[in-house]
């Protein structure tokens, strides 16, 4: 009987303690005790571990999913890149074609009195002495030997020989080439000649200048039409230097050509 009473009392005390605990711990601004933290940590530790493992696994899953996505994206981008590069190449081809066509129409517009055949330079001079260019138009296009070759800037040279589809062009820079020419200012007739020491600078020499003829820097020189190879009035270049010698018959002038031979790409052959 006493035992039963004691048990009931203990149960009552236990309930009261719990209620007291509830009353004491039920609050928003309560600091947890060290004991509570320890127990809480101990309880949550396995959960944390499991959670971490779970998180890591799910992240990996995401990563795997991402890799698949990225690979897909990468493939897509590579295809797009390829397509863009192809378009870029097409664009560049169109651009260069456009430049060539522009040059052609410019040449045709610059010389309305002449019938011209427009050609591209396919080979530049092959050795250190001659200035022989090969162009991509030949006898089947109406190109014949001794025809004059020009660009929008001025005189290039003449055709020496042709095949069916190509022609050899001797430029005015060739040391064996002479051009009968005239000063546009004074109208004095002179002969411009290529020179091996001046050809790299794209210059010509005017030797045997008649006594009394003087040039000044900037004087423009054009073809005189004499000799029958070059038509009259095609620009050649302008005087850069007039060299006065003791003997006036030995006076010389240096002429810079208008045509930039280092960038010679498109030329026109006067066929009529």
């Amino acid at each position, binding site marked *: 009987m006493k035992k039963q009473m004691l048990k009931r009392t203990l149960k009552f005390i236990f309930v009261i303690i719990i209620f007291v605990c509830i009353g004491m711990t039920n609050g928003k601004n309560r600091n947890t005790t060290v004991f509570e933290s320890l127990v809480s940590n101990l309880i949550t530790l396995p959960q944390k571990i499991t959670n971490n493992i779970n998180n890591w696994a799910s992240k990996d899953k995401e990563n795997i999913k991402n890799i698949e996505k990225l690979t897909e994206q990468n493939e897509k981008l590579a295809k797009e890149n390829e397509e863009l590069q192809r378009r870029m190449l097409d664009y560049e081809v169109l651009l260069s074609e456009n430049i060539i066509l522009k040059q052609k129409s410019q040449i045709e517009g610059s010389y309305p009195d002449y019938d011209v055949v427009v050609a591209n330079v396919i*080979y530049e001079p*092959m050795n250190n002495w*001659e200035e022989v260019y090969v162009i991509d138009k030949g006898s089947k296009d109406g190109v014949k030997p001794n025809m004059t070759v020009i660009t929008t800037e001025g005189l290039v040279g003449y055709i020496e020989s042709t095949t069916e589809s190509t022609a050899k062009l001797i430029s005015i820079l060739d040391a*064996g080439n*002479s051009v009968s020419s005239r000063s546009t200012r004074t109208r004095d007739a002179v002969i411009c000649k290529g020179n*091996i020491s001046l050809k790299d600078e794209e210059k010509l020499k005017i030797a045997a200048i008649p006594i009394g003829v003087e040039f000044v820097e900037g004087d423009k020189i054009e073809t005189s039409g004499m000799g029958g190879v070059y038509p009259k009035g095609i620009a050649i270049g302008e005087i850069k230097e007039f060299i006065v010698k003791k003997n006036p018959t030995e006076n010389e002038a240096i002429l810079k050509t208008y045509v930039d031979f280092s960038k010679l790409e498109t030329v026109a052959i006067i066929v009529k």
Partner: protein
Amino acid sequence: MRKTLTGIIMIFVIGTAIFLQANLLQAIPLNGTSANIGIILVASVGLICGKFIGGINGFVYGILYDIAFGRAIGIYTILYLLVGYLSGSFNKNFSKDNKVSMIFLISIITAIFETSIFLFFVLFRNYDFELQSMLFIIVKEIIYNTILILILYKFLIWFGEMINKSKNSYYLL
């Protein structure tokens, strides 16, 4: 069979040399002067293989050059043939391990070749005779050729040896 193959390789090498001369070497001139790969090829083959093969090599290179770029067929044919033949006459004294002798000989041949061409142009093409300019161009070309020989030396030796191996008579093809 081997001779035919050698002949095909020889024509291919000559064609490549002309292509390089027209496209690459002209695009990278040394102070306005370009190297002459034709002289290097023809002279070195002559030097390694002798007069006959050197002559043939020079003839093929020269005629192709004349047809494609020359102003008259025959000038370069004869000159390159002579280059091959002349260099071939030094064949017996040439050691393939001696770069200097090859450079020295090709330099002399370059000087003779270019002087002959220039004199021909002076005589027949109305060029002014300018000794100083001519010498200046030739010296620059010799320097450029020397650099090219140093680069191509192993290939030239291989090419010459290959022709030599297939040659057991005087007739290549």
